[in-house]
């Protein structure tokens, strides 16, 4: 993993997990762009498309081009569907292009497009679930609210009265995101380790 890419990948994870709704939108964008760019790179196999991993020179540029185009498409779509979400996500939407590469994983060159897409869906859903989980923890504890979509009479924000007056503001800051991220990674690693020790895990860690 390229460290610079990883740091860029952390950028929206910190900035966009302050409210649940932001993390939902950014996760949707990540899932969409990741699936479509994997498919596109599979189909365009004649050009070097970074299939041996995102950090291999010309392949990286090609992969970045593909995901940038798709990200621009997602931005335009978001602006059409929900202008307010587009405004609040702001600069972090374009960063999806880099995020997709940061979480992308090289597939064996024999993989079929369908198999690659399944992998991309899995990664997109996993990343999205992680971001939404972090946002849920941070917004609930750090602001005392849960911001979702307004549906009918529901204004879109659940207010937790016990926390909203004096929330744990430290978790709402950038450091709170890193803290949640660290503990989430730790828990996942512990689960993975336990599963490996149990010998039941037949899947990739």
């Amino acid at each position, binding site marked *: 993993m390229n460290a610079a890419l990883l740091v860029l990948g952390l950028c929206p994870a910190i900035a966009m997990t302050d409210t649940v709704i932001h993390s939902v939108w950014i996760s949707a964008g990540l899932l969409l762009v990741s699936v479509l760019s994997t498919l596109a790179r599979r189909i365009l196999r004649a050009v070097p498309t970074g299939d041996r991993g995102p950090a291999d020179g010309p392949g990286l540029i090609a992969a970045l081009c593909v995901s940038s185009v798709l990200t621009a498409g997602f931005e335009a779509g978001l602006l059409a569907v929900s202008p307010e979400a587009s405004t609040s996500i702001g600069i972090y939407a374009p960063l999806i292009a880099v995020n997709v590469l940061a979480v992308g994983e090289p597939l064996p060159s024999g993989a079929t497009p369908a198999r690659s897409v399944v992998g991309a869906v899995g990664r997109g859903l996993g990343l999205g679930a992680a971001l939404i989980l972090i946002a849920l923890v941070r917004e609930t504890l750090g602001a005392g609210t849960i911001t979702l979509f307004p549906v009918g009479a529901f204004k879109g924000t659940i207010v937790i009265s016990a926390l909203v007056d*004096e*929330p*744990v*503001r*430290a*978790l709402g*800051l950038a450091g709170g995101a890193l*803290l949640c991220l660290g*503990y989430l990674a*730790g828990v996942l690693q512990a689960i993975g380790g336990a599963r490996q020790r149990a010998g039941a895990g037949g899947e990739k860690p």
Partner: protein
Amino acid sequence: MSGAQTSPALHPQSAPHLRVGMSTRRMTWLAVASLVPALGFGLALFGIPGLVVVGVSIGSALLAELATTLPFRRFTLADGSALLTGLIVGLLLPAGAPVYVPAAASAFGILVIKQSFGGLGRNWMNPAMGGVLFATVSWPGPASWSIPPLGGAAGPAAPPLEALRSAVSAAGPHGATPLAALDKAGYAFSSLDASAIDWINAHLLAPVGLAFNHGALDVLVGHVPGAIGASAPLLVLGAAYLLRRRVIRWQLPVIYLASFAVLSLAAGGLASGGGWLAGGPGFHLLSGNIVLAAFYAASDPVTSPLTRTGRWVLGISLGALTFLMRYFGSWGDGAAAAIVLGNCLTPLLDQWTSHRPGAAPKGAA
């Protein structure tokens, strides 16, 4: 436990592995004992509310330590480290804080800062200071709710440092020393202080043409609203005992306090319009948590540099950071934030200043 060095069997202990002829456990319990005078004075001043804050913070620290060690069938409460962390957290907080503030501060210090990184000796940040900073950032209001001390002036109880800050922002540059500015803003110190200072001024200082401001005595002994463990003389007394027993080393606290005092004296007056060399370093040294922070957190052997050069550099950095955060920041008195940032510098300082075996000595020895 001091048999660790003489008995033939090996007793692996937690870091810090320092050669001081004393076990980590003994050092910790001595530190706890040395805080008892300051704690007693604080409890005498703040009564039941103070006892509640200290009790909750100690209880929360012990519970957090138990909760993280019992699943591994270990019992570490006897090393006194969790008790010390809870005690320092309690002393750093004001007596009017609602119970969730000390509870969360201690729990964060133990669970996140200490145990998540491997427990005693592996924390890279002072647990008490980190916990207090966490609470201060999370609940800036409740974490600074103060009550007037026994015999103090009635009315809204703001610590002198906060009162000074709001006086400066309300009245703008005034060019006065901190205590004079507080006097002008109508800040009330205790009547005991007023009569004592008046007597001293009239009988001792008038002949030589000097005068103390009201409040000097209150600030000196810590008889003001604010943190429970704010009595600088008693804290220094406890620290002197620890220095004598060689539990802590003098360099870091002394350099820290000295660099902070020099900076306060030189540039502290700029913010209040007094110009250079008009900062009132005495007031700033004695108010807030800087004395407790310097002797009980900065000197923590786990999170301070191993080399002498490193300790000098860190001490000066801590003084500068505290100065900057106190005068220009918004998070309390600056000491907790400075210590936490300084702890983050420690590994770098160790790396930069330690002598590598086989390498040529750096500089002119």
